[in-house]
């Protein structure tokens, strides 16, 4: 229960590879079609953020279990510019009006747990988990 697979994000096509990996892992973990799509979308958003704002980084996917409940954990990390104002990034952007897609709040909503660690000039690591209910 400790296999971690990962995809380097360098070009836009790596986003697709990360999605594919995520969907496969989600399926193997036992998630239904809709949750597979949600997990894949979360990965897609995280990978796009890396691609757009950090230039490059990594998506790691891990199957996890806690107290008999199974789930899938995604770790998105980069050594990009970091996030200066975390509060702002986590605010609802109201995707309806903005053109930036789901953004961080969207990823948070698609998954069950969510954590950002970011230091300006050092990079950003986002860890997010979804549990099989």
């Amino acid at each position, binding site marked *: 229960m400790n296999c971690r697979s990962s995809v380097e994000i360098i070009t836009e096509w790596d986003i697709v590879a990360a999605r594919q990996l995520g969907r496969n892992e989600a399926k193997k973990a036992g998630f*239904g*079609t*809709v949750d597979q*799509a*949600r997990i894949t*979308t979360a990965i897609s958003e995280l990978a796009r953020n890396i691609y757009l704002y950090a230039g490059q980084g990594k998506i790691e996917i891990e199957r996890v279990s806690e107290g008999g409940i199974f789930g899938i954990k995604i770790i998105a990390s980069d050594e990009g510019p970091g996030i200066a104002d975390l509060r702002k990034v986590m605010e*609802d952007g*109201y*995707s*309806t009006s903005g053109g930036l*897609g*789901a953004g961080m*709040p*969207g990823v948070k*909503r*698609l998954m069950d747990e969510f954590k950002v660690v970011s230091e300006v000039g050092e990079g950003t690591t986002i860890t997010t988990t979804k549990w099989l209910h």
Partner: protein
Amino acid sequence: MPQEVGVQYKEIMKKYLESQSEEDLYVGQQFSRRFIEKNIAPEDVISIHKNALYELHPHLRKQVWDSFDFLIEMMIHYGLTLREHQSLVRKQEAIQMEMNVATKVQDTLLKTTSPNVRGLDVGWVSKPAQQMNGDYIYFLNQEHASSVAVADVMGKGIPAALCMSMIKFGMDGLQFENSSPRNVLETVNRIVEKGVDDSMFISMFYGKFDSTNGHFHYASAGHEPALYFDSATSSFAELDAKGLLLGVKKDAYYEERSIPLKAGDFVVMMTDGVTESRTEEGFVEMDTIQRLLVDVKNLPAQQMAEHLYNEIGGMQEFRLSDDFTIVIFKKELE
């Protein structure tokens, strides 16, 4: 999402596919209303639909099922927006509660007492267009004089409410000897000019009835003229005086004028929410306002003010486009 939703969905759809009746669609739509409450996202509905169709017609070609997976993918962002909506609704409810508290605070803070001076009958109405009133009435009561400030703060809501509290405390600090209309406006103008930035303007009419000589003294800071009714000739005249809006210029000068009030005469001070009331047929004419006032000129001032509000408010179905304020000073019959 509960298993049972899927089962019911299938049953309702099955009936519809057999009958294609409006009744089954009605039942279906009534059923779907609960989805949002139950936190079922649109992508979940597609999945429920796919499963129901599969159970009813398992032998459709593979592309049909694949197409549903594609459709689920297309729906994910709708589901996100829906959740965003729910969080926004909660936020909105919190703001609403805060506004309710603010309105109560404002009401308590800005409460004013109608004057009670011999020979003068006073009536007033002030109705906000939205939750918080941007019009403001302040009465100053002295032994032989009754004064009123009628103000309209540009803008609405919270910034306006803050400005009004400033006016109130400014006027609370006024000394008796300085209560001539010109002095009051000059003083309040200095407070406003100092206290708020350039984006905030306030218009104010200040009227003072002096019971010792029966004169009505007034000054205006860019406010709507008042209406004076001369009972002897049964005619109206506008009372206006020169003066800039409050807060524009530090040392603004305000003209002061006066007029004797005879028994049965009255002065109507208003905000532009009254004179610029919009109905389906356009603005309310000054003639209409005057006619409405003449109709009830023999009633007590309070009833006159309420009549004017009921009539003009009614013309716009009480959906006011601006705050609506009237103060009537009426010289009593001996």
